[in-house]
């Protein structure tokens, strides 16, 4: 009889130890995964070549690349937000634009942003995007030839910021808005642009 509880005790101990070992092993595995996501999951994070705390550099684009970026999004209605860190209403508006981009993504709206910051402000622009994650790609216009760029985007753009441009899904420019705008104005236009594109 005594052997029974004894053997039970041994078996119990063994199973508890086994469970503990298994639990420790799984914990180790979980913590290992948590600590080294790059090793266990090779899919690239946002900044593969930089320290995780370093915001990614914004790709600098020339006028021809802008046209290519618009053309590459054909098939879906497109909104392009022009902003700069020196532009206060742009900074105010940006989180709202990011929210609208998220809100209308599933309805088919594609969005990208273009910063008009100078080279000396590139770091500020990068930090701004780190503070206000856009959820859509952003580029920075190569400084210089401002007038040519403005006229290429639209001859009716004065150059004033902020400015947001709307394209139909066939890539045609539908129009743009300049200066501070309310969320209501944005929503009205986005919904019309989506409706016109059959989305």
């Amino acid at each position, binding site marked *: 009889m005594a052997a029974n509880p004894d053997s039970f005790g041994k078996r119990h101990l063994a199973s508890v130890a086994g469970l503990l070992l298994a639990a420790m092993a799984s914990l180790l595995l979980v913590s290992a995964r948590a600590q080294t996501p790059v090793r266990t999951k090779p899919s690239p994070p946002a900044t593969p070549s930089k320290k995780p705390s370093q915001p990614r550099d914004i790709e600098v684009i020339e006028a021809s690349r802008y046209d290519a970026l618009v053309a590459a999004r054909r098939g879906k209605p497109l909104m392009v937000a022009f902003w700069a860190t020196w532009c206060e209403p742009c900074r105010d508006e940006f989180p709202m634009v990011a929210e609208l981009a998220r809100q209308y993504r599933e309805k088919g709206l594609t969005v990208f942003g273009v910063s008009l910051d100078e080279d000396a402000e590139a770091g500020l622009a990068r930090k701004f995007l780190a503070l206000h994650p856009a959820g859509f790609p952003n580029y920075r216009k190569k400084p*210089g030839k*401002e007038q040519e760029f403005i006229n290429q985007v639209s001859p009716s753009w*004065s*150059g004033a910021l902020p400015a947001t441009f*709307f394209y139909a899904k066939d890539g045609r420019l*539908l*129009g743009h808005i300049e200066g501070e*705008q309310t969320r209501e104005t944005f929503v009205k*236009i986005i919904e019309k642009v989506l409706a*016109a594109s059959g989305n």
Partner: protein
Amino acid sequence: MTLKRIALIASIALIATAGCAQQTPAPIGTPLPSLALLTLTGEKTDLSHYTGKQGTVVIFVSTQCPVSNAYNERMQEFFRAAVARGFGVVGINANRNEPAEEVTRHAKEHGLTFPILKDEDNRLADALGASFTPETYVFDREGILRYHGRIDDRRDVTKISQRDLQAAVDALASGKTVATSETKAFGCTIKRVPRSDNKSGS
């Protein structure tokens, strides 16, 4: 297809009406507007008091816009040289969020000695189709618009390659035609008073 086309036209119309800040620039050849403006001490005036024998330069300025502020020294230098050559130079502040007291303080702090007027209800900005700061208009000695646009092609003073405002003034001073009469640049939007206020007149 037809419905879609109609919807598309409607959307363009909507963008046009919603984008109330978009202005149609006054065409070259427009006469100097004679509209009521205010001095920074509140007296009524108009542009006719600021004209020069050779012509008149109107610059829309801002106290808060970093682009306009990047041009403070350049505007002051331009003013000194242009006035010496017989041009009238006047700054216009049409921003609703920059009261006359702030404009006065800002001018003192930055050594701006050219006259600056308040365009309280944006009538001048609307008449000229001004959109951003700093945006300039050059009128000849007959008061006819001969140049509209940027001061120069770069905010970064070390990278300027075209001094368009200077070139326009140089041309007028020597009796020539302004070669490049319209230019554009990135700038801060003029913060206009809401349209309903504009109509009621304040």
